[in-house]
């Protein structure tokens, strides 16, 4: 079984986000970039499937400028077998990315596509579902457990209010939620080995996809600041404030 995993290069999880002074975008100059945390979980899950003997090959793909090769090398160091970069400008919209990923999935005849449920920059939570729709594959989003057997994936999903388990026929798309696994760290020898693993560069034309979007950004602003309030000295003072000042407790 072949597993395809998509990875996205995003602002590092721990970096404080700043908006550009002209309110055109978030300032990404000289900011640490890393693999999107949900994509890390996706890579980990694919590698575990390979270690269990369920998957034979793990292919990672990223859509973006040359700098995303760094993210692909990270995935290779974690255990993926080979990588594909689809060379485009950065920041394509989800539908364009989905069309490209669907093209790669078809090309590779991937049996299972594992993706992060959302990226922590645009917070869209849509690319996996779109890939599945474009390929007419079933999907299991927000996965917290994935069991692959007999040509199907049994996936437990984190839904509002609890968990849901679905069985989907392969080929299929799975998107990862936080508790699916705890990603490993790459060891130094594996980082060195990753430099020799194959990394192919493709273009949207290879998949017959025209990228573009009908959505434009009007402005990006910082969120309204919340002013700090006061410290209270005791529980009774707190209750008094909540009853008589804020009037949120009767």
């Amino acid at each position, binding site marked *: 079984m072949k597993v395809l995993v998509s990875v996205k290069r995003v602002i590092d999880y721990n970096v404080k986000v700043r908006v550009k002074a002209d309110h055109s975008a978030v300032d990404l100059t000289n900011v640490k970039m890393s693999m999107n945390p949900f994509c890390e979980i996706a890579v980990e899950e694919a590698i575990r499937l390979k270690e269990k003997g369920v998957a034979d090959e793990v292919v990672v793909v990223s859509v973006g400028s040359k700098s995303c090769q760094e993210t692909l090398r990270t995935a290779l160091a974690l255990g993926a077998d080979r990588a594909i970069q689809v060379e485009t400008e950065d920041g394509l919209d989800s539908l364009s990315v989905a069309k490209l990923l669907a093209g790669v999935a078809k090309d590779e005849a991937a049996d299972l596509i594992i993706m992060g449920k959302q990226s922590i920059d645009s917070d869209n939570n849509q690319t996996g579902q779109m890939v599945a729709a474009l390929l007419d594959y079933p999907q299991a989003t927000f996965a917290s457990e994935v069991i692959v057997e007999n040509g199907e994936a049994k996936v437990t999903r984190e839904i509002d209010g609890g*968990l849901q388990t679905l069985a989907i026929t392969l080929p299929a798309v799975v998107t990862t939620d936080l508790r699916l696994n705890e990603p490993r760290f790459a060891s130094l020898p594996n980082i060195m080995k990753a430099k020799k693993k194959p990394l192919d560069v493709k273009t949207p034309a290879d998949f017959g996809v025209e990228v573009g979007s009908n959505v434009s950004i009007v402005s990006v602003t910082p969120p309204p600041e919340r002013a700090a*309030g006061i410290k209270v000295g005791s529980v009774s003072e707190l209750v008094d404030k909540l009853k008589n000042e804020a009037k949120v407790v009767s």
Partner: protein
Amino acid sequence: MSILVLAEHDNQSLKPATLNTITAASQIGGDVHLLVAGFECQTVIAQASKVAGVSKVLSADNAVYEHQLAENIAKLVVDVAEGYSHILAPATTTGKNTLPRVAALLDVAQLSDVIKVESADTFVRPIYAGNAIATVKSSDSVKVITVRATGFDAAADEGGDAQTEVLSQVIASEKSRFVSEQLAESDRPELTAASVVISGGRGMGSGDNFKLLDGIADKLGAAIGASRAAVDAGFVPNDLQVGQTGKTVAPDLYIAVGISGAIQHLAGMKDSKVIVAINKDEDAPIFQVADYGLVADLFDAVPELEKSL
């Protein structure tokens, strides 16, 4: 201009997030139609037809729609999409699961987690976990949008008198099969719909200690939440998580107990009207957003607070 809203329900009752989504639809302007797809969901259809601002209910009542599987619900929506300028769903796990499939099948973009309607083509949505707010404009022929419930007031669930149109399409889902569901049984309000939320963090020390919050939650009719740190430590299940990677809440009162206030947590609760923080570390960042901060050991303060309410 007509707007189609996909109703969120459990075949028995209409979920509150649907009402907030209808308000967003009304702000865009035009006839608002509500699609109820489910199985043996006649009570939901009856509720839907009474919602103020809804002019038509489309009902698709068939066993194939019982579990809201994205594959066939998306095809059903696309099947009835013609003539609609906007298609909306609440940004719940169900809406987020289904609507991007609709957008892709219609070959248009989706705008996720919209918190404000500027005009019929311009919308506001948080990005970077709410650390930046983007205003976006779409020229797509049909705008596909998920709506964050906390950004809009709920439409009145009484006063409407919508006609019902029964849809005959039966679209089976052959590649996806429902196996089971484990829903947390709770008498408490749903986290995202509660007017009071009390959340515990790593400072709670253990899952057992979360019981300390029950008394206050009972007295205030509050939902119980948690920080990611408490979830990661295994104290409570993930569906209680408030934050960037969990749920976004904006109650009238939010009480953070033993929560330091990581950016990731603040992203999920900083739009609450009144925030109370109880933490023994006076330098905890949570105090920078709290209206009322109490520097105290939660194991003393929480029982005392419970008694004085």
